[in-house]
């Protein structure tokens, strides 16, 4: 903004006449915009020349909420971050997001025609999820808050700071976008077992949507079927297999978007994220606190679901953050060249234990498996610590076959060698029973 020269300022100050100061009532009425025109002009005239009264007026202004006119309280002079600019850039970003979602969807449709659907029965390992909810119960519960979040989420996205964990951010974002009504009750038995299969399809499905570099590394969801997509109607009996992962336009709350696939919305999110602040830490923590379900797949992978069993993610206890166990390894014939995925395959070569048992209490998770591998996480699986129960020289041997925690402190582990280990202080010390 153009400045006025110092000379002008100086001169103005020297020549300012005061006149009679308005009394407190007039000043108050001026501040509250309740003066008639003639009085207002008179007071304005005085204020223009009297810095004392201006100071008083500034101090006596009502608090920001009380002011009838909405004004922003940004201290900076309106520049590039002014509200009008931000508003339009947000609109542009949304448009870009919609376009990118549309493009992805189109491409995915093409690729879906060549997908290979399989259905393989799976046996579940022992699961002791303390707060396991049935999917039908979980689904509405996890979804009921979503419409609200969906409408609010967009608003909130603008204002809050980005969360630190990308997975959480994505998961949270996903919650903002999905609007899934209840799922059929027969999912309960099918859900965990068919995970890997769905993963197979999902792997390819998500492959079909080439991920942008930003967010694809984590949380490529081992997706589940039952996608009530608008665009591809796959019959129900192929439930665990890949249903269309197509996602409608991300920001539209009126469309039914499935919680399973994060592929396309991830892109949409990425588009939106570019312009706006991504999902909040609140969303992130809400997904954390939404007490995920835990399960073991038949080939010993530890899996976690945040949405009541619809989608399962393989947990890699060896790495810091959640990363997907190589799904491509099992579906090598599907070769959607994508850099991210090949990188991830390489990363997964390190051995991870074959899990046999898992126990979860709130955000605290214990998972155990072959060769006495016992892992403990207190943040729903974001970070893992390897524990080795031992007492007076003897350590736990064998495969861990069951873990039971009746409360956060007391736990009991049984191994294939016939041992039973008990802790009363949440894993601090163990003793053999």
């Amino acid at each position, binding site marked *: 903004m153009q400045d006025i020269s110092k000379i002008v300022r100086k*001169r103005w100050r020297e020549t300012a006449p005061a006149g009679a100061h308005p009394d407190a009532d007039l000043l108050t*009425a001026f501040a509250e915009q*309740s003066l008639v025109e003639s009085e207002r002009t008179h007071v304005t005239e005085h204020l223009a020349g009297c810095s*004392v009264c201006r*100071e008083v007026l500034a101090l*006596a202004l*009502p608090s920001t909420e009380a002011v009838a006119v909405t004004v922003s309280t940004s201290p900076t002079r309106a520049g590039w971050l002014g509200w*009008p600019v931000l508003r339009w850039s947000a609109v542009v970003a949304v448009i870009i997001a919609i376009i990118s979602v549309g493009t992805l969807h189109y491409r995915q449709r093409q690729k879906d025609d060549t997908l290979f659907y399989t259905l393989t029965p799976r046996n579940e390992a022992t699961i002791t999820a303390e707060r396991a909810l049935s999917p039908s119960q979980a689904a509405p519960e996890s979804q009921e808050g979503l419409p609200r979040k969906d409408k609010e989420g967009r608003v909130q996205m603008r204002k809050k700071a980005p969360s630190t964990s990308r997975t959480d951010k994505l998961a949270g974002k996903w919650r903002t976008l999905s609007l899934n009504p209840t799922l059929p009750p027969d999912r309960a038995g099918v859900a965990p077992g068919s995970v890997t299969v769905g993963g197979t399809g999902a792997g390819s499905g998500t492959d079909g949507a080439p991920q942008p570099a930003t967010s694809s590394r984590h949380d490529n969801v081992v997706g589940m079927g039952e996608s009530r997509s608008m665009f591809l109607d796959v019959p129900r009996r192929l439930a665990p297999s890949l249903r269309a992962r197509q996602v409608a336009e991300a920001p539209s709350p009126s469309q039914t978007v499935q919680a399973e696939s994060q592929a396309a919305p991830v892109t949409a999110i990425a588009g939106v994220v570019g312009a706006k602040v991504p999902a909040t830490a609140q969303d992130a923590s809400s997904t954390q606190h939404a007490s995920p379900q835990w399960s073991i797949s038949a080939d010993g992978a530890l899996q976690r679901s945040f949405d009541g069993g619809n989608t399962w993610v393989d947990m890699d206890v060896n790495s810091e953050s959640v990363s997907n166990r190589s799904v491509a390894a099992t579906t090598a014939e599907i070769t959607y060249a994508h850099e991210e995925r090949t990188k991830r395959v390489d990363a997964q070569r390190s051995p991870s234990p074959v899990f046999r048992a898992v126990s979860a209490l709130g955000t605290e998770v214990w998972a155990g498996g072959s060769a006495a591998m016992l892992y403990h996480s207190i943040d729903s699986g974001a970070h893992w610590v390897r524990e080795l129960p031992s007492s007076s020289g003897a350590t736990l041997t064998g495969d861990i076959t069951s873990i039971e925690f009746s409360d956060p402190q007391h736990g009991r582990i049984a191994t294939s060698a016939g041992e039973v280990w008990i802790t009363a202080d949440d894993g601090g010390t163990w003793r053999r029973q």
Partner: protein
Amino acid sequence: MSATIPIAAPVRSAVAGILTELHAKSGCDEIGLTPESLAAILCAVATKYLPAGASESEAHSFLLTLHVDELALARACAAGNNVAWEIFLIRYREKIYQSALRVARESSAARDLADSLYAELYGTSSRDGERVSKLESFTGRGSLEGWLRTVLAQEFVNRCRRTKHLMSLDEEIKDGAQFAAPEPEQSSSADPRLESSIDAALAALSGEDRLLLAAYYLDGRTLAEVARMLGVHESTVSRKLDKLARSLRKRILVGMTRQGMHRREAEEALEVDVRDLHVNIRCSLGQDSPAAAFSVKEDALHFRQETAPARRWKKLEI
């Protein structure tokens, strides 16, 4: 509360017209205000603010803009009614303290300010043997809460001026300013043509424009603050200020060229750094007009960071 000023007939009839309604709405019965007293109060207020020849309808609409319930409460408190005082304390005690905190920004000064206001409101001073309360002067044109805030702000500003005026003299003695080099001519050595153009250009602006410019450039307030002061949107303020600053500059230049300066010369005169001018500050300081003296020292009141321009200006002068 006795009206020493004669009440005009239109005012009286306007008051009479809506008296019962106002009396009922304001809960005057609980606080012991009779309809007659309320009528007298309203007549006095209307007479104070309305122009002499106001018609009954004008008086009527004026009365409707008043916050009659708060006016009644305040006057009842001033009259010494205990119920009224209790109600006042319940509603406004916390607000007074919070407003004081906002004004003084520091809790001990705020408490001090709030306590002194209480004393004044309660009426510790007496005149002619009767207790005089500051609430007597409340006329209901603005909300009582706003009025309390304004009164706090006024008291605060006055205190600051008193202390800073004393302190600034000490500062000058410390800086050795009283031993300044032989002073140049008494009036500023800025070009008189420049000065007259500036005066003319400023005078040509409307009051509101000048208020905008003063609040932003002289006081150094933020756009948001200026917008709140005037009750307009911030972007409106921004646009107006930009336009005004440009047109002001143009007008000054035109004024100077009309008086015979060349355009180039005029522009240079406008841009000259003040430090090169030997402006006599003492003259300004010595003026009796409180506004002028205050304006020079005004940065004393600006504790905020946004007023850096004003502060810088002061340093240049001294």
